[in-house]
């Protein structure tokens, strides 16, 4: 508030004042999205979650490249093997490059079964961009390079161990990330469009339409959702291909995810419709289309994004749960739920705990979506403080 | 007339995300028994916050200045140093309600919606008076009658939302007075009411104060209300009292440029169609408080280099009147 032309100020103070002044001007002419971004940035946990989720999504999108092996590639030499942790040192000295020891087959002295034991005399070095299986990234970019792997193309590394068929848990988890996240995205999108249409109709037309829609929404909301999904999932013909099942699943998840969202859209519409500035636009002679696109939608979008983000966890958890009990995706598809199917028993916890690693992904993804949702919710209404 | 409350150098700071802000700085006033102090100011002047500090009702993010003194003399003559009390505890609770009562702007919001009027009144009565349930109830009915609520016997069992706005504020007054306070703090009690209802409530409060001989602090932004109800007035601007003195004298002959501007800006019913004289500029936000005199950004008589650099002292201009302005300070006069 001090006068800038005050002669008593030192140049440094003046610069400081000038800087503050510029910042204020920047704030004054900041649009909605800039304000939201500024506020969201302040939410450190949400930023961290966003980065984590971004990494996860990238890994999923470029699964062919990121995963060292295919989802069904078997390593018969290493079945139900524990995770192999890269190391820099062993009994034979240290190295600057990480490596793992090879394995050799021995007979268990008691049961006489063949088991794999580490062979301290062999070393396989880990590299980036190694040659491996030929794959098509994103389905069309052919390459035989993989992000990470062993120098020796004949040897395999299993960061997170293998399952009972010798499939690499790390690679499978990366592929599963793609499936599970994409089911979430598609499911949310489907339910979003349904919600937008249904909630929009209720909020826009009001009256009888609204009453009927409200009643139907009410009915769908009281039905326990997983048993309902189960009913629909059970109806899927057993002979369907994995792709068909995949799309059917997204459709089912999307088909019943809309009621909560539709209710929110409806109430948002109703409250925005009565905002003074919308009335003002109407009195200024704006047509309905202009009122909706210029005045209602912009204020509405940020809230809807929040709702979308917080409805992801339900989709992901539902898919995981359904696949877990065998009603969702089925092998040979890989999703987090499908992977966890192999870990259904207490025996698995005791003997092959690494099969639970996909669960960490589920928890992290759901947590990340929840935290981002919280951060967005705080940021979505940048004008609440201004009052 | 005995002095019941002395407040000296009251400063209140809040911790916020953007740093510490101090919406109230160096406020001093006092209340005598049987007299009404009007605290007048526009939005952001810190009038409500100051009285909440008196009752130690501020949130945990708030802190009082080091040389803040708030001394209250109880009904039995003890002096309580309010600034030393904890926010929560037996000593301050003894003061709240029983010694100092408080009425708020929103009568609906100051009642809990899920209990009857009678329930909430009886609670206050039993906390501060040695009465049983029966007695407390009939006392509640008596108090409702006293504030002019008809059919009090039935009203006592109604919920707040079943009463109209004016009735609710009357019930709130009855509730507050039923605890028997010696000092009443009324925070804009009539602002949310219609003109005719406001007049009724002002009338009622004036009568009750005289009848019960209470001291009263009446907070408002309306100088008209002050003129009608207050004996003394303190004018607040951005967290400081810029002028104080007997209401009559201050309103007739304001000394601070802000008080002068405020009075001139009020539309009068006697001089129709005249141009109004606004105070130029906007009220700065409390977290961007100007340096020096807080009013200098809008003051037509500001002394450059002085008013914007150093805050003025409080100057006694006449017995019982004080003003915080360089124009009344010898140093300021010399500089001008």
């Amino acid at each position: 508030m001090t006068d800038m032309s005050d002669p008593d100020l030192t140049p440094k103070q003046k610069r400081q004042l000038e800087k503050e002044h510029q910042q204020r001007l920047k704030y004054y002419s900041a649009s909605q999205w800039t304000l939201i971004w500024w506020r969201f940035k302040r939410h450190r946990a949400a930023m961290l979650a966003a980065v984590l989720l971004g990494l996860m999504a990238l890994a999923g999108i470029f699964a062919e490249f990121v995963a060292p092996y295919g989802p069904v590639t078997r390593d018969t030499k290493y079945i139900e093997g524990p995770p192999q942790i890269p190391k820099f040192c062993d009994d034979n000295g240290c190295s600057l490059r990480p490596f793992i020891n090879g394995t050799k087959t021995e007979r268990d002295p008691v049961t006489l079964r063949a088991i794999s034991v580490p062979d301290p005399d062999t070393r396989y070095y880990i590299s980036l961009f190694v040659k491996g299986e030929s794959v098509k990234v994103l389905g069309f970019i052919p390459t035989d390079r993989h992000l990470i792997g062993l120098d020796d193309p004949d040897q395999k590394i299993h960061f997170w161990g293998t399952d009972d068929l010798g499939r690499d848990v790390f690679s499978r988890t990366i592929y599963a990330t793609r499936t599970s996240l994409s089911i979430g995205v598609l499911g949310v999108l489907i339910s979003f469009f349904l919600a937008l249409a249904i909630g929009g109709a209720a909020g826009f037309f009001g009256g009888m339409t609204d009453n009927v829609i409200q009643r139907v929404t009410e009915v769908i909301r009281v039905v326990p959702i997983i048993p309902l999904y189960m009913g629909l999932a059970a109806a899927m013909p057993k002979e369907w291909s994995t792709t068909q099942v995949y799309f059917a699943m997204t459709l089912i998840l999307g088909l019943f995810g809309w009621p909560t969202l539709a209710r929110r859209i409806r109430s948002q519409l109703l409250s925005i419709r009565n905002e003074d500035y919308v009335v003002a636009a109407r009195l200024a002679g704006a047509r309905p289309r202009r009122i909706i696109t210029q005045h209602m939608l912009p204020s509405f979008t940020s809230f809807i994004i929040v709702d979308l983000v917080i409805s992801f966890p339900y989709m992901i958890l539902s898919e995981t749960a359904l696949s877990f009990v065998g009603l969702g995706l089925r092998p040979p598809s890989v999703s987090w739920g499908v992977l966890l199917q192999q870990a259904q028993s207490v025996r698995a916890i005791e003997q092959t705990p690494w099969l639970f690693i996909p669960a960490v992904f589920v928890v992290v993804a759901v947590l990340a979506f929840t935290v981002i949702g919280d951060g967005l919710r705080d940021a979505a209404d940048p004008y609440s403080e201004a009052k | 007339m005995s002095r019941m409350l002395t407040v000296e150098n009251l400063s209140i700071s809040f911790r916020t995300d953007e740093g510490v802000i101090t919406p109230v700085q160096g406020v001093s006033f006092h209340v005598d028994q049987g007299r009404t102090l009007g605290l007048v100011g526009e939005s952001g002047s810190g009038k409500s916050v100051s009285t909440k500090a008196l009752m130690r009702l501020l949130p945990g993010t708030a802190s009082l200045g080091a040389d803040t003194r708030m001394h209250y003399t109880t009904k039995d003559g003890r002096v309580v140093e309010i600034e030393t009390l904890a926010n929560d505890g037996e000593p301050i609770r003894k003061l709240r309600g029983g010694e100092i009562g408080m009425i708020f702007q929103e009568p609906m919001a100051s009642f809990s919606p899920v209990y009857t009027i009678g329930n909430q009144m009886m609670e206050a009565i039993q906390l501060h008076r040695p009465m049983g349930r029966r007695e407390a109830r009939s006392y509640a009915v008596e108090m409702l009658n006293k504030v002019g609520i008809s059919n009090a016997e039935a009203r006592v069992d109604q919920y707040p939302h079943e009463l109209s706005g004016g009735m609710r504020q009357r019930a709130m007054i009855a509730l507050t007075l039923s605890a028997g306070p010696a000092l009443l703090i009324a925070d804009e009690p009539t602002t949310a009411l219609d003109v005719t209802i406001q007049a009724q409530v002002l009338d009622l409060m004036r009568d009750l104060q005289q009848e019960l001989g209470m001291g009263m602090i009446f907070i408002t932004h309306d100088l008209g209300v002050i003129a009608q109800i207050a004996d003394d007035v303190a004018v607040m601007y951005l967290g400081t009292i810029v002028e104080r003195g007997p209401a009559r004298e201050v309103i007739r002959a304001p000394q601070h440029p802000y008080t002068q501007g405020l009075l001139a800006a009020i539309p009068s019913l006697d001089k129709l169609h005249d141009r109004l004289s606004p105070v130029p500029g906007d009220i700065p936000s409390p977290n961007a408080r100007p340096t020096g005199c807080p009013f200098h950004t809008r003051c037509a008589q500001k002394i450059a280099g002085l008013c914007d650099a150093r805050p003025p002292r409080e100057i006694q201009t006449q017995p019982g009147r004080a003003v915080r302005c360089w124009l009344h300070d010898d140093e300021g006069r010399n500089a001008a």
Partner: protein
Amino acid sequence: MLRFTLERLIGMAITMLLVSLMVFIIMEIPPGDYADRYAFRKYSGTGVNVTEADIQAIRVELGLDKPMIFRYFDWIGGIVLRGDFGQAFAFETSVVKVIGDKVWLTTGILFATLILTYLISIPIGIYAAVRRGSAVDYGLTIFSYLGLALPNFLLALVMLYFANRWFGADIGGLFSAEYRDAPWSLAKVWDMLKHLWLPAVVLAWSAVAYQIQTVRATMSDELNKLSVTAARARGVPERRLLIKYPARLAINPVVSTIGFDVNRIFSELPIVAVVLGLTDLGELLLKAYLDLDMNVAGAILLLLTFAIVFMNFLSDLLLAWLDPRIKLGA
């Protein structure tokens, strides 16, 4: 209050009618009809060659050739008038026999879970709001995030693992081996209670996390209300103040979401049941779905939903009793 109750009763009846329609439609969705599956199950492996005519005969016998709307009324009429949910072909007996006392087991699990949820979440939520911003508050926030994120079946597995290590192997399921098929007795009930806590804890987990957040949020709002400040200004002691004013109102959203909690619990039940080896409706439902025994599945889905609708009704009544503003507004 009477009118209010009546109104809600009628609302409940309408919802139940619509729900039953929906459930019926879901029962009809699986490919092929009941007769197909009946014939397949009855004669597969017996060497009998089933012709289209045979199936048609079964269809007529069972009344499956009638239009859907008639079949719906047959079905719902049987349920409402005679308590008959039809035949469970996978078990070759009536659905009622199959479901039987599993209804009571499920009810037991449900109420154990609900009570556990509210006993934990309400006091903790209130405490977190009062101590807002403290370490305890942050800890609870992190806990409730985890509660929302951890899939319940995983939790069930982990709990089972530890329960096995600490309490011995016989903790899964609802009964110890010696009581599993024994007739009901006091000892059996006691044995059940000893097993009931595990599913209750697992099922309560996410509900607790959710309700802590709800209670904390409303309590925080209520704490900032003028009525609380006003009561404090009257000298009401702090503890009593918290309980009488904000806490009393912070319970309202919990009461209004009882139905929602029941929904959540029923949603998780089938999956948790698989992991914990419970023999309740949830597990049966899963089995029925996998076998495409739609009469059983439909009956269970219908019962679960009715329970939710009924709990919604109860929560409405409870809320109206708790909050005087609702009765008058209705």
